[in-house]
């Protein structure tokens, strides 16, 4: 046991309420400042030249006409990275080639050069004057093509790591394996074995706000950055590395974020804007991606192939499981295979398991995280096979899962044992839900109905976070936190501090300062922030209480040991007359030693494991093949819901994204390896008109590693919908669809084949 287990608080005053969110008025009135709103004196614009082909060698780049164009300040290519980054940081070398191609382009939209000019149109015109000559190569569009014996090799100097063996001339960047028990032996003792293969297409997070960056490299070689990001410190550190500066030479200023979902954990524009600023006489440069570029050149979630083989006894117990997952890394290595491998069978206690995971480069944009990266894809496959097992054996779909559910002490396929988790409680909540107990609508005319259920797991993160607190003279408390607020974390952290200090949430005033004004804080992602930054807030509040007690001792001239703090009041244990509220103390602290402030930095392990379940009722129009979700319920163990409305919104939002992934969304590629639906008109994400109200059931099995029980919310809800809908479609039409998206075309194909 190396984790700290806290005594759990059970009675709350602030936690579990829904106060007006601190950023609410600014967001509603439009006052909130986003990256595109940033304006600086002498601001100029940057634009990017992008590859028009999916795969090719760059024979030449002629920038001469662009450089001579009136209004143009600078043109940069990959050579400018090499000039600035003299240390040639090998860890960043591949990322640098993604940000600006070196000698090959590896996907349509791959950035090749960037231009700064007096305005955006001039920059765009200058981009049109840059001539790139290619030697076009055959594109590799998916994992099947990539692993063929004679497949074109994308990255000539890539040395694949195949279970520890170095392999040259390969598109498989990495293979990892988890093995528990003996699968051969396990399958021998199975009464039923089902093995199926599933295909998934690449999908995008679809955040509304496109990537943007404003950079000002000044005469002192100090770089100031504004960028829509999930992690100001990551932008600072990565940009510094790319452009050859030290971290202390870069300051990232916070701006609001219009959606990220994992896609804004990567850096694309800030290094370009930085180099352009430097090369443009230290003028600030602003860059904003257009929507097409967001689709073509930012990081989507990987598609790929997942093969699943599961065995069970007739008594309803798993005997063995094999999962083989191959994810598209995109143009450079680094897809979410490790998470996919960890998550794929984590919901269940399976004694014999083997998981092989392959990271495969293809001619598509380099993938990024997307809510529970890797888990929706594997859940789609595993939960579909489980559904088939239950149908074949005529088992209740929740009872079978309950009979095999992971609990404290269960060993995941990667060998790690769970601590206290709430999967069984989540299954029980699903079983007793109104949705599960309600009858499904009856088929009529050309409308058929189906119900599906599926589960998902994400391990939830920890990591580094910092929170500072300052007691104002009026008794309110300023809170600075280093986490980007992408899901309401300013309020959820403020509420945890308020609970600890015994004051209302409104009296905590949260803000996010620049990276020079708060301690290092990791990227907001992996459902880590309410847990880790929240715990930093709790610790800072505890320190504030200690200091307030000390000051009260000075003020009353009594021993500190005779002072207690409770529910926002400081009082003497010996003299009932001596009692001060925080507000009253704040008014007199000046004479006791000046202002009171506190800070806390943490670096926490993860382990707040989260489980979720989706139940869906769908209606299929057998004439058009269109699927409508008529009812969807998401059930999730969140540990403790700090701000229940936020939690419900996060869960509903994740479910909606998962529904879009399941039914409609895909990178539709043509024979030339080019995405042909790179706009929101053609890339069909669900809107509110497409969906019913998402019903949310919050389960609260406290995480012992947090005094209020927080686990995390944002990742899990996107996992179940893919398989939930696959199972509902199977229930409706009697045939399983083994690939995403399960769109009307595929359904009509199934219906027409009989």
């Amino acid at each position, binding site marked *: *046991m*190396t*984790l700290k287990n806290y005594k759990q608080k059970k009675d709350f005053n602030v936690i579990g309420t829904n106060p007006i969110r601190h950023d609410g008025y600014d967001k509603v009135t439009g006052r909130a400042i986003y990256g595109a709103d940033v304006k600086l004196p002498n601001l100029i614009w940057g634009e990017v030249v992008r590859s028009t082909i999916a795969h090719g060698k760059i024979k030449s780049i002629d920038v001469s006409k662009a450089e001579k164009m009136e209004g143009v300040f600078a043109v940069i290519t990959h050579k400018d990275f090499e000039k600035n980054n003299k240390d040639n940081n090998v*860890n960043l070398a591949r990322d640098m080639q993604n940000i600006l191609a070196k000698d090959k382009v590896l996907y349509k939209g791959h950035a090749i050069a960037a231009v700064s000019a007096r305005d955006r149109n001039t920059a765009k015109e200058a981009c049109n004057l840059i001539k790139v000559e290619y030697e076009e190569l055959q594109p590799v569009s998916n994992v099947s093509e990539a692993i063929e014996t004679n497949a074109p090799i994308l990255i000539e100097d890539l040395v694949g790591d195949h*279970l*520890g*063996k170095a392999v040259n001339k390969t598109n498989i960047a990495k293979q*990892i*394996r*988890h*093995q528990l028990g003996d699968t051969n032996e396990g399958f021998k003792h199975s009464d039923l074995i089902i093995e199926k293969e599933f295909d998934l297409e690449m999908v995008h997070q679809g955040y509304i706000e496109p990537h943007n960056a404003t950079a000002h490299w000044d005469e002192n070689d100090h770089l100031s950055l504004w960028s829509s990001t999930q992690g100001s410190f990551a932008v600072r550190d990565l940009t510094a590395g790319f452009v050859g500066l030290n971290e202390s030479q870069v300051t990232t200023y916070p701006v609001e974020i219009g959606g990220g*979902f*994992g896609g804004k*954990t990567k850096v694309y524009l800030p290094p370009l804007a930085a180099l352009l600023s430097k090369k443009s006489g230290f003028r600030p440069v602003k860059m904003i991606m257009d929507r097409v570029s967001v689709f073509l050149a930012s990081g989507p979630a990987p598609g790929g192939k997942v093969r699943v083989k599961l065995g069970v006894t007739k008594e309803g117990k798993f005997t063995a499981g094999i999962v083989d997952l191959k994810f598209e890394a995109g143009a450079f290595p680094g897809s*979410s*295979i*490790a*998470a996919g*491998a*960890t998550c794929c069978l984590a919901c269940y206690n399976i004694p014999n398991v083997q998981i092989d995971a392959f990271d495969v480069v293809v001619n598509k944009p380099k993938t990024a*995280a*997307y*809510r*529970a*990266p890797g888990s929706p894809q594997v859940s789609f496959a595993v939960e579909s096979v489980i559904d088939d097992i239950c149908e074949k054996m005529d088992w209740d779909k929740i009872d079978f899962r309950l009979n095999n559910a992971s609990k404290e002490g269960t060993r995941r396929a*990667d*060998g*790690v*044992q*769970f*601590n206290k988790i709430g999967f069984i409680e989540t299954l029980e909540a699903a079983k007793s839900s109104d949705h599960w107990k309600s009858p499904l609508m009856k088929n009529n005319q050309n409308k058929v109905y189906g119900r599906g259920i599926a589960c998902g797991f*994400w*391990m*939830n*993160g*920890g*990591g*580094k976070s910092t929170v500072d607190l300052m007691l104002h003279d009026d008794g309110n408390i300023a809170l600075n936190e280093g986490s980007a607020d992408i899901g309401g974390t300013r309020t959820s952290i403020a509420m945890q501090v308020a609970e600890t200090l015994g004051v209302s949430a409104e009296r905590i005033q949260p803000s996010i300062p620049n990276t020079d004004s708060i301690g290092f804080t990791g990227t907001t*992602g*992996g*459902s*880590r922030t309410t847990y880790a930054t929240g715990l930093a807030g709790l610790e800072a509040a505890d320190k504030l209480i200690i200091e307030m007690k000390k000051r009260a001792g000075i003020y009353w001239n009594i021993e500190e040991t005779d002072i207690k703090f409770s529910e926002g009041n400081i009082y003497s244990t010996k003299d009932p007359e001596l009692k001060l509220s925080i507000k009253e103390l704040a008014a007199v602290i000046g004479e006791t030693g000046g202002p009171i402030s506190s800070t806390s930095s943490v*670096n*926490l*392990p*993860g*382990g707040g494991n989260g489980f979720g379940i989706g139940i869906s009722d769908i209606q299929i129009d057998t004439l058009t093949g269109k699927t409508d979700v008529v009812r969807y319920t998401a059930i999730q163990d969140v540990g403790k819901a700090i701000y229940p409305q936020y939690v419900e919104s996060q869960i509903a939002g994740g479910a909606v994204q998962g529904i879009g992934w399941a039914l409609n969304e895909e990178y539709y590629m043509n024979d030339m390896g080019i995405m042909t639906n790179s706009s929101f008109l053609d890339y069909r994400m669900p809107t509110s008109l497409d969906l019913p109200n998402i019903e949310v059931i919050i389960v609260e099995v406290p995480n012992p*590693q947090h005094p209020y029980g927080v686990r995390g919310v*944002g*990742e899990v809800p996107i996992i179940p919908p893919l398989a939930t809908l696959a199972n509902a479609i199977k229930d409706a039409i009697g045939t399983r669809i083994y690939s995403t998206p399960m769109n009307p075309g595929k359904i009509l194909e199934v219906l027409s084949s009989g």
Partner: protein
Amino acid sequence: MAKVFLPFQLKEITENKDFIEVKGKTLREVINNLDNMYPGLKDHLVEEGKIKSGLSAICGFAATRKGLLQELEEDTEVHFLPAISGG
């Protein structure tokens, strides 16, 4: 004794044992003792005095953030796994 579970690709070095029992009060001590038992193994786990980039050390139920300084209680399980990042 800590119970050390190695990634699949390193199990060959340890004669395909499911886990190895190793003495040590910190992760550093455990890895050094492991290297004494299986010379060269440390190079697969540690780089420039830190847990190798791309690897994660799970001590007990969750990934340690203390690196080689992580204190270990008796019978703690240590798993070396590919590092995971989230969305």
